[in-house]
């Protein structure tokens, strides 16, 4: 089985982001960047499948500026075999990303494409599903467990009512949720070794995909701030405060 994993470089999820006062976006210069956490779970899932056998190659792809090489190196250090950077400095919409990935899928012909379910910057949760449609594959999103059963996968998905298990024939697209696994921290020798693994850089323009956005972002604004409240001294005061709120609620 050949696996393609798509990864994204984002503002590190522990950084408290700052909205630019002019409304043009979120400050990303001078901010720590790292691999999107959900993408790490996707890489880990690929590496674990390889450790169980029958995986011939793990190819990792990222789309973004030159610095996205860093997250590809992270994936290579975790155990992926080869990297592709589709280089662009433009902020691409999710549909454009999916179209570029579909071109990579057409070239690489992986049996399984693994992605994180969403990126923690735009929180879109689009690309895996879009890629599945564009490459005419079934999808299993929000995976918390992946079991290979011959030519198909049994995937347990985290859904609003709990969990559900579905069977998807390969080739397929699977997106990772947080409880799929615990991503490894690559040991230093692996990090050194990653630098000698093949990494191809290709400009996004060479894929013949229209990169122009469809939506116009008018502004990025901060959410309204909550004002600090009060601390009460006793359980009785707390209960009375709850009673006050309940009495004010609209009957629905």
């Amino acid at each position: 089985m050949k696996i393609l994993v798509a990864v994204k470089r984002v503002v590190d999820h522990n950084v408290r982001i700052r909205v630019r006062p002019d409304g043009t976006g979120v400050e990303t210069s001078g901010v720590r960047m790292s691999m999107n956490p959900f993408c790490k779970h996707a890489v880990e899932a690929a590496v674990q499948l390889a450790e169980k056998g029958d995986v011939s190659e793990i190819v990792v792809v990222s789309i973004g500026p030159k610095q996205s090489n860093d997250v590809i190196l992270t994936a290579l250090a975790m155990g992926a075999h080869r990297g592709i950077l589709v280089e662009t400095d433009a902020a691409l919409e999710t549909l454009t990303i999916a179209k570029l990935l579909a071109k990579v899928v057409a070239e690489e012909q992986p049996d399984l494409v693994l992605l994180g379910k969403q990126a923690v910057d735009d929180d879109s949760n689009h690309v895996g599903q879009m890629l599945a449609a564009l490459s005419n594959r079934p999808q299993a999103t929000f995976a918390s467990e992946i079991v290979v059963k011959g030519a198909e996968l049994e995937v347990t998905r985290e859904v609003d009512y709990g969990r559900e298990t579905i069977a998807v024939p390969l080739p397929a697209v699977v997106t990772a949720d947080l409880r799929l696994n615990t991503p490894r921290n690559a040991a230093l020798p692996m990090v050194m070794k990653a630098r000698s693994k093949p990494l191809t850089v290709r400009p996004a323009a060479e894929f013949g995909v229209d990169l122009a956005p469809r939506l116009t972002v008018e502004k990025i604004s901060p959410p309204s701030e909550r004002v600090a409240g009060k601390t009460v001294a006793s359980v009785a005061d707390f209960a009375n405060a709850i009673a006050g709120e309940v009495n004010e609620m609209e009957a629905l």
Partner: protein
Amino acid sequence: MSVLLLADHDNGALSPATARLVAAASELGAVDILVVAENPAPIAAEAAKIAGVHQVITVTAPETAETITNSLENLAQRYRNVTASASSVGKDVIPRLAAKLDIQPVTDIVEILGPNRFTRPIYAGNALETVEDRQATHLLTFRASAFRPAASGNDAPIETLDLSVTSAARFLAAHRTDSDTPDLATAQIVIGGGVSVGSAEGFQLIEKLGKTLGAAVGATRAAVDAGYAPNDWQIGQTGKIIAPDLYIAIGISGALQHLAGIQGAKKIFAINTDPESPLVKIADVALIGDLFEIIPQLIAELERLGIKR
């Protein structure tokens, strides 16, 4: 300017969030509801009662991403807006449909500013993005919790659409959390428990308080990861987004990812041992102390006051 809205349902019942989604979709035009289910009739009958629904369309099919997407695709050309809830189903199918129709979707909408202007949260709700969508057809998902529910009392006509939709993916099994607490995403009162609750038994205490108030019960990611609470109770960036009138956070320090899920709450109350925890800092009312001592007293006090929703 018509709108097609995909209805969520579970276990043969229409999602209680649907009235909120109809209210959101109605801001864009007359709303038709699509129900895709193996037995859609009882779900469609419920949907037809929501005020503002023009007609309900049913497709009889097992529910997978592919069958739902194909049903929506078949109907899409009739509508200016194809919409769904930003639920696990809407998130699964709207992007798939978007790629098939070559439309960039706008998802997790919390505010409709006009027929083609929408606001959606990014960075776990730490920023809001306002976008203009000039595409001929809009593909949208709404966060139900951000909209007030539409009234009931309607009797919209129900049309059966005879479609044959196929799916390479097959449904095998549902693993459901048995619970009689209200729906987390639409509840007026939500009690949340953090990792300090310490155990699944500890969460029974949270549930007991929930029952006293008629509240839904949720948990932080850490509490779910620790196995204290089921995954569908998770509140936050990657779990459920809630917007109750009252959120009571118990033993929750307030990680960014959790705060992302509760920003829509009108009032936040907190019980915590640490007066410096981020959640206490944003709480409208806080009580500092040990939750295992406080909760039994609180239940007794609320029962004495006769609070019941």
